[in-house]
């Protein structure tokens, strides 16, 4: 991540739209489908301006038929196109999961590699603004668990643009998850750290390479998407307490940059995993298991995790805030490793 200070700062939303526009400019096969992505520019602004630039044929509003249009994307991809589709909220995956995990994700395998499925499915994740249990989930663990799709979740605009380009270029289906708390829309509020310098030219951030956002020697804090900003804030607090925390942004779950995590754990001997997904059978378990299995000898203390408890995302503010990961929980978890 090259981040110069005085520069072209974009929100993730704008960075995504920019990448989409560039990709459509340079490759006729790229087109977009989704609900309200046309005139409206997408519920989250990801296609803002693209309808006017590329027209209704390449920026297609769809009916509320997720199985239909995601399945259609697979067929279009099989016939030479490179569709990017938007599933408005990831919480809606339940109405179209077959088209995602059994169709898009497996056709390459079922065809012995003869029929790749170059498509991107972008979707909004996360809560924190009171949208309750069917509009606030992250669910990336669910996609990452099932084979055949890459799963990325950028934490800032620079990555968002570069990962989008890489996702579109990839010949495999990529689930691209953008977090509402980072998206840069006024009506959602935005974590300032997500608004970063973003070059005006197309570039790629490779899928499957984690980033060390902050170096440290006492403990490794691992996360992706919104939680890495909480981890950075916690690291700042910890520094004041004399604890040196290394913060890793996984950037993608599939492929997973195991080596980056293991190298850090081998150095620090302590691990805290932070997640905004449900705790059990998900991301935190996997990262801890990898560390326990492959860096057992380096671990100086029990690895800890901070994740959403195994409850639906509650609506009322006190309950939702109680459930979300936050800086203090991370700091406390780090202390538990010391």
């Amino acid at each position, binding site marked *: 991540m090259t981040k110069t200070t005085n520069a072209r700062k974009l929100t993730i939303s704008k960075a995504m739209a920019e990448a989409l526009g560039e990709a459509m400019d340079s490759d006729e096969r790229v087109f977009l489908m989704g609900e309200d992505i046309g005139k*409206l520019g997408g519920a989250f602004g990801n296609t803002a301006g693209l309808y006017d630039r590329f027209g209704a044929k390449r920026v297609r509003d769809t009916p*509320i038929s997720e199985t239909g249009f995601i399945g259609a994307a697979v067929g279009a991809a099989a016939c030479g196109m490179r569709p990017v589709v938007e599933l408005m909220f990831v919480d809606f995956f339940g*109405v179209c999961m077959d088209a995602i995990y059994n169709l898009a994700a497996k056709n390459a395998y079922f065809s012995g590699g003869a029929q790749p499925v170059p498509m991107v499915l972008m979707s909004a994740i996360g809560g924190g603004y009171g949208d*309750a*249990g069917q*509009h606030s989930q992250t669910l990336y663990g669910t996609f990452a668990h099932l084979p055949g799709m890459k799963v990325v979740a950028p934490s800032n605009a620079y990555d968002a643009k570069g990962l989008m380009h890489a996702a579109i270029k990839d010949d495999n289906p990529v689930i691209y998850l953008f977090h509402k708390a980072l998206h840069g829309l*006024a009506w959602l509020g935005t974590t300032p750290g997500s608004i970063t310098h973003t070059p005006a030219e197309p570039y790629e951030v490779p899928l499957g390479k984690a980033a060390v956002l902050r170096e440290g020697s006492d403990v490794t804090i691992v996360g992706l998407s919104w939680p890495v900003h909480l981890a950075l804030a916690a690291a700042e607090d910890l520094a004041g307490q004399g604890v040196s925390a290394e913060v890793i942004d996984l950037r993608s779950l599939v492929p997973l940059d195991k080596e980056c995590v293991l190298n850090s754990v081998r150095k620090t001997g302590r691990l805290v995993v932070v997640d905004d997904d449900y705790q059990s059978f998900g991301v935190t378990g996997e990262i801890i298991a990898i560390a326990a299995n492959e860096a057992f000898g380096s671990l100086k203390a029990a690895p800890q995790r901070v994740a959403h408890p195994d409850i639906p995302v509650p609506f009322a503010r006190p*309950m939702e805030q109680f459930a979300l990961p936050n800086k203090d929980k991370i700091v406390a978890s780090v202390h538990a490793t010391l």
Partner: protein
Amino acid sequence: MEPDASQQLAMYKKMVTSRQYEDAIQGAYFEGKLPNFNMANGPIPGEMHLSSGQEPCAAGVCAHLTNDDYVSATHRAHHIAIAKGVDLERMTAEIFGRVSGLSGGRGGHMHLFDTNVNFMSSGIVGEGIAPAVGAALSFQMRGLPHVAVAFIGEGAANQGAFHESLNLAGLWKVPFVCIIEDNSYGISVDKKRSTAVPRNDVRAAGYNMPGIYIENNDPLSIYAAAGEAIDRARKGGGPSLIEIETFRLTGHFTGDPETYRPEGEKESITKRDALPLMRERMIKNDVAAVADIEAAEQSASETVARAIAFARAAPEPAPEEALNMVFV
């Protein structure tokens, strides 16, 4: 089936309560959210979908329902909840995320459940249809004279769940009615760009049930058509599909700038607002005296004010309460 004078006044009262309720919620919703609109702030966080303009659909249909009849509603549920008789104080407390809310603040505006009147709502487009068919099935299996009604938007009629549920209903001839509130928009996408046919009533033929289309958001035609369908269902005559032309007088969500609307549309649909039209007609046709109408309006605003006051006075839930009721 014509509603008599008292029924018309009762419908009007439901409608006016609903409209005043939406206005009050809108006011409360914007508290703390302006000048820079941020959904996370204020006494009611999250998305808010108001039903202003669509009241006739709810009032005309629910006039035929008892507490035992089952209703599933959508993300745009307030008018239906009010017409069905959901406890307005607890519903409002829920919308404000308070401990006395219907679910103690766990669900919020998109997840309103009142088991006393067999009411549910949900935030996933099309999700409520199958449960209503299942409720109807349970009535049929137990020999009960109740019916189940699913309210959906015209956008939901393109979801797979719609098709599967209507086929089940038609196949099993359960006492079920599907009401499509055709406000011509799914968020920003108008029906022409989402639906291969101009009217969804034609789809009923694919499910072996009558399909009816009602124009003009007219409470009396809605009352009549729904009455017939519900009656038929109650008597074992099987399900029906009714699509109603209605108007969403506000944005998809509160705060929606509605830039996708064609010029003049807002004005033209506002002129067709069923509330003043019904009021006028009742007066003109001597269905109700102005005094009765004003009394109904007065009572509506008291009801609404009480509900909002109840919600505001209710305490917020304890944070750890979040952990309860995942399992019962």
